[in-house]
């Protein structure tokens, strides 16, 4: 059913009058040159990694479903740059970028994509199911919305063990309509769990645009009836993302319970590698790339504000390309799992 067209969109920063304490509107992060360079490099690593993954998929080296993060890099880079070692990260199946930012070596991720024994999940998980307890990255979940409840559980364990950690639980605009998300919102606020719910609103749940699927399409308001405050953030701006992370972490670490960050972003590629993306025009995609590309944005800041030169960027580019090429070479050449691995890891114990 088509959405009633007669609605006027609400102003983006509606304060929703209430006596409850609210987080202050976050300010863009004031990054040093070194920090900007790091953001640039991290975003570029994700972009080049994903481009390479797309290539390997085209060559048949990666199978099944493969969801690329290209276009959304500023969200994860901005947010995760603010985390400490105590914090945990969980997301859905568009997970490669988040993993790289958790410090998982690109070759471990790429080898999982190619289904090899050296992959982070020994080749048994694939693109959508990757985890690293060591790096506090808890997946990599293939069921839309499951990571929200699981993330609330991770936050529960942070609180239970009093380890000072906060869970960063990412989900998309599509998952934002799942029932379990609201069950989890309710319990997370009721129990003041230390969790940041990050809605990566890339405008399309597979092929369905937000306003075709969401009666309240201002997703940052989705926590209101649970008393969870929400902020709507420009997810194409890494400094806005980092600034939002600072505010959200301060809110959660102060024991005020969960908070929602709606990150307005855009994916350049299809939903998955097999998506022809007929639901939007090439012009729409190109316009975002031209006007709002998160990497170009930081490049401009570095060039105009910090005197960075083209050769500085070239050096970074070369380093990243080399790293990604090595990961891809490794992922192509490292062996498949031993057939005996078929039967391992079903259960932990012997009965």
């Amino acid at each position: 059913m088509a959405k009633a067209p007669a609605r006027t969109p609400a102003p983006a920063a509606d304060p929703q009058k209430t006596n409850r304490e609210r987080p202050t509107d976050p300010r863009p992060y004031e990054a040093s040159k070194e920090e900007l360079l790091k953001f640039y490099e991290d975003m570029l690593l994700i972009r080049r990694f994903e481009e390479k993954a797309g290539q390997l998929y085209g060559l048949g080296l990666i199978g099944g479903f493969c969801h690329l993060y290209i276009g959304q890099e500023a969200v994860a880079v901005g947010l995760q740059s603010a985390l400490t070692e105590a914090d945990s990260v969980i997301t859905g199946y568009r997970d490669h970028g988040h993993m790289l930012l958790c410090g998982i070596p690109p070759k471990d991720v790429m080898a999982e994509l190619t289904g090899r024994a050296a992959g982070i999940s020994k080749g048994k998980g694939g693109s959508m199911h990757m985890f690293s307890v060591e790096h506090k990255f808890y997946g990599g979940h293939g069921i839309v919305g499951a990571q929200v409840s699981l993330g609330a559980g991770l936050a529960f364990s942070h609180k239970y063990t009093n380890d000072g950690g906060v869970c960063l639980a990412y989900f998309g605009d599509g998952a934002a309509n799942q029932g379990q998300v609201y069950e989890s919102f309710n319990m997370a606020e009721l129990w003041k769990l230390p969790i940041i719910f990050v809605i990566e609103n890339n405008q399309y749940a597979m092929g369905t645009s937000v306003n075709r699927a969401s009666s309240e399409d201002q997703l940052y308001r989705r926590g209101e009836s649970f008393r969870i405050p929400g902020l709507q953030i420009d997810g194409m701006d890494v400094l806005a993302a980092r600034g939002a992370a600072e505010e959200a972490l301060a809110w959660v670490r102060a024991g005020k319970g969960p908070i929602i960050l709606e990150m307005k972003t855009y994916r350049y590629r299809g939903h998955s590698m097999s998506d022809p993306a007929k639901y939007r025009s090439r012009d729409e995609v190109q316009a975002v790339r031209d006007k709002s590309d998160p990497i170009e944005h930081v490049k401009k800041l570095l060039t105009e504000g910090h005197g960075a030169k083209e050769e500085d960027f070239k050096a970074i580019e070369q380093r990243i390309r080399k790293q990604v090429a090595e990961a891809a070479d490794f992922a192509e050449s490292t062996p498949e799992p031993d057939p005996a691995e078929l039967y391992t890891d079903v259960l932990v114990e012997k009965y």
Partner: protein
Amino acid sequence: MAIDIKMPALSPTMEEGTLAKWLVKEGDTVKSGDIMAEIETDKATMEFEAVDEGTVAKILVAEGTDGVKVGTVIMQLAGEGEEAGEATKDDSPAAQAAADEKKPDTVEDSAHPAQEKVDTGARQLFDAAANKAEVTDPAIPAGTEMVKVTVREALRDAMAEEMRADERVFVMGEEVAQYQGAYKVTQGLLDEFGDKRVIDTPITEYGFAGIGAGAAMGGLKPIVEFMTFNFAMQAIDHIINSAAKTNYMSGGQMRCPIVFRGPNGAASRVGAQHSQNYGPWYASVPGLIVIAPYDAADAKGLLKAAIRSADPVVFLENELLYGRSFEVPKLDDWVLPIGKARIMREGSDVTLVSYSIGVGLALEAAETLAGEGIEAEVIDLRTLRPLDKQTVLTSLAKTNRLVVVEEGWPTCSIASEITAIVMEEGFDDLDAPVLRVTNEDVPLPYAANLEKLALISADKIVKTVRKIV
């Protein structure tokens, strides 16, 4: 005309209760809504309200009396204008009818001998659950003192002991804390462990199963109680997709040590949506452990094992068994191995394989068959996944005949699975086809007579065995 006030049934499974306290005395006048007494059921202390108006003529059961059967006249109420004393010698037709109502439990009806005591299908399951194992569990050291404990208490004790031993263990679910458990299984845990570790959840199974699974992935050891497993269908995605598969999908690095527990299977007259056995569903999923104990010793020993396991466990209890008492070994740390069936009764002529409440019926049927000279060996599977095939096959090699007894649907059941295993690995030992006694292949009806027809019974087992022995 005096009114007989009878011991009320205050839960679907209540057979008898304790008249804890009278709040009225003889000569008091009561009106509708007045609380007359406090009655303890197997689950809770309930207030018993007056429906009729009148004067308390006579109190027939003193407060503090245990084991008052449902339907017993506990007081008499004199109506308006009656003398209180008249009520005691009331011969009115109503009083006579009330007296008759108590009788079916004891009166032999020669025309319908099979009707004796058995009013409903659940009743026949419940009554059979009084049957005890004839063979002592070899896991119990010789000379161990045994104590009588209900299944409900055994489960609670298992949780309490494991919570004392391991700070990471906590319980969450609907009504587990302040209400002391919808079926009183978590009684006392809140008092001992506090609200950090005994957590009441909203009625949101999908959400809290996910939170539990996430907490397990984060290093804790949750026990998630479902009020019944019927409601766990809301949460089955997390049980299977999140809990069961993650260890494999992560190449063994991310574990999910969680116990999902609660009552499973048919209760009493609660209809189709509240009466289903999910054993076969969960037992079909690699990555899960599925346990379905029969008696209290197994409930305790296996729940402790489940909580300690590094794997996700679905622990299927049975509401009709909660109030049943069995002998439990008095040991500091009674833990049973997961994945080991138990021989409940030895026999040479036929093997009856069952689990959960079906075991009681199998034992009852074995008694009847023994009277006909047929010695049945009864095996309680105890764990449905991994299934202890060897115990079944070894018994079959001795008896050469096998019947599976399952309180559940026949299609794609544990019975189907046992039958397939026997075909594949025990064919040469078979002298007759494997038969199964299961519930009828219909949603469980409410009507007492239909419910009885739909559920398994000892009689059906006996008749089935006679076909092949």
